[in-house]
Every structure is written in C-alpha cells, then in structure tokens.
C-alpha cells in the first residue's frame, strides 16, 4: 500500500489537477523528491533553495506536523497519509 499525498489547490497545476496522488518513500524528504520526479516543479514550491520546507508550508504525516516529529527525516510507512498545507489568506473581501 503506497503513501497517499494530499496536494493543495495552489500546486494542483503541477499534478494535472489531481488533489491526491500516491507515491512510495521512506521519509518525508524522500517523498518530496519522489513527487519532484513525478511532477517537476513541485519541490521548489514546497522547499526553499536549501531544500528545507518553506515556513509558510506545513507538512503533516497523518495528523501530526513534521516539525514536531523529525522534520524531513520523519519516517513514512505504507498507508500513511501526508498532507501538504500552505498558508492561505483569502476571505475574498
């Protein structure tokens, strides 16, 4: 069973509109690289030039924020659900 990744609206242009994709990886860092291979351009949106997850993007493994696990070294196992959650500002005034 692969890992399910929730893609937020602003990044769906890169996944051909898919809101959920499946991939295989051992860590969150590896997952970002796997996504980049499948959907080029996604890594630079999620990570800065040092490859660190940007401060206005949060990644959750199941319900937990990876910053409170072991960040990009957080291990993944089959069946995990990963959510990429950028800050959104709209109230559409």
């Amino acid at each position, binding site marked *: 069973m692969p890992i399910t990744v*929730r893609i*937020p*609206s*602003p990044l769906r242009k890169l996944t051909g509109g898919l*809101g*959920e994709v499946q991939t295989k990886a051992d860590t969150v860092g590896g997952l970002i690289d796997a996504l980049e291979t499948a959907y080029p351009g996604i890594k630079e*949106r999620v990570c800065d030039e040092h490859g660190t997850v*940007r*401060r*206005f993007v*949060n990644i*959750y493994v199941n*319900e*937990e*924020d990876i*910053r*409170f696990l072991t960040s990009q070294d957080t291990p993944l196992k089959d069946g995990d659900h990963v*959510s990429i*959650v*950028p*800050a*959104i*500002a*709209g*109230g*559409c*005034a």
Partner: protein
Amino acid sequence: MALTDAQIERYSRHLILKEVGGKGQRKINEAKVFLVGAGGLGSPSALYLAAAGVGTLGIIDADTVDLSNLQRQILHTTDRVGVPKVESARQTLSALNPDIRINIFQDRISSSNILNLIRDYDIVLDGSDNFPTRFLVNDACFFLKKTLVSGSIFRFEGQVAVIKAHEGSPCYRCLYPEPPPAGLVPSCQEAGVLGVLAGTIGILQAAETLKEILGAGESLANGLVMYDALDMTFRTLKTRKNPQCALCGPNPTITTLLDYEQSCTMPSAAGNPA
C-alpha cells in the same frame, strides 16, 4: 438580564438545547464579537451570529459593495452596489435581528487602530483577504488575550482554526511564522473561489465562535480544519505551540504590532480587495 417573551420565542430552538438553554442564550446575548471583513467569510458568520442573538457585533471593512462580490457575499444585495459594505451589513443584520447592537467601521484595519477596535470585544473573527492583516490580527489578539477564530478560502479549499495563544494553545505564527513572499501564493482575485465555499467556512467560524461563547463541546484551539469541496473531505490536523514562536514563545522577539507592507509589487501576498 432575563429574556423577554419575544426573545424566548425567537431563541426557543436554542433554549431547548441543554448545551445552550436560558443560561447559554444569555451568554450569547451578552457576547461581543468583532468581525474583520464584511466579505465572503464575514457575511455568513455575521448573519448566523446575529440570528443567534450575539449582543454586540463590531464590523470593519473599508470597501463598498461591488457587483462581483455578490456571487458569495450574502450580506449584500444588488441594489446596494456602491454602498459601503459595513452600512449594507448593518441594514441586513438589523433587519434580521433588531435586538442586537451593531458597531460599524468603514476603515482599513491597521497597527494604529486595531487595539482600540478590538479591545472591548471577547472574540475576533478573521475573514480578511490578505496575509499582512492575518498576522496583524493574530498579534493584536495575542497582546489583548482575545480568542481568534480564523478562516480562509482559496479556490475550492478552506481552512478554519481557533487561536487562544493566551491560554497556551498555538498562535497563527506557530503554524506559519511569516507571510509568504511575493508571487508564491496567488490571491483569490487571481485564482477565483467557489462562492459557496465562503459560506461553508464562514459558518464553521460562526459555529466555533458560539461554542467558545458557550464553552460547549471540544474547542478547535489545537487543531486546523481543512475542507476540500471538490473531494468532499474534511481533515482535522493537530497544531502545536512552536517553542521558538517569535510572538507567543518564551523568548518573544515580536513585542509590538508590525505592519507588513502591502505594496503593489507583491499583489499575491498582500491581496487586493476584489
């Protein structure tokens, strides 16, 4: 203050709920809620809070009603295009519930006015459309120990969070320490938004606000709800206090209100009232 006969009738469906009852309804009637924005999110929340009998509603919005607002901003009507949104809001809300006090401010919220604006309120609802305002509202609520109910929407997706950093739960900066830089996050105006999504998220904000007033149920103070209208999924993610938070951490570096520049070179981050 005892409820009048008319109030007993008006709020009867609340009064028969044991989680509300007469005591809870009086709490609602005495509550003071401040809404940042009378737009997509502010419209549904204000309508339901007024209907519920929230005694005092403060509303700030600098804009006037535009035809393109009416796809989602249900406080306003076609014949009020050109009218200040706060004035339109007052007309709609006082027609719905003449019992409540409505304080309106046709102005932009800023570091110079926010503390005085929200000081006398219990809860602040943020339905603003840009990051600088979201960070300003978060910081001001922390300094004044106000509960903040934050909602935001983008295309088909929305987020809701309740922030009570003064009671030890995370603040908005614990989730997102700084606004995104220019160009990385498009605004609603550029990206569009499903009108009804504003309703879904605004009403979740109203529900969380009423729960906070009543002290009922499970507070969302340690969670972030994500709603995706296309997938029809809700996910509640856990939020945690960032021990290095510049605002609410043990060694804060933000001790006064900051104004992030809303320059036109960063329209996507600063937003632009549609």
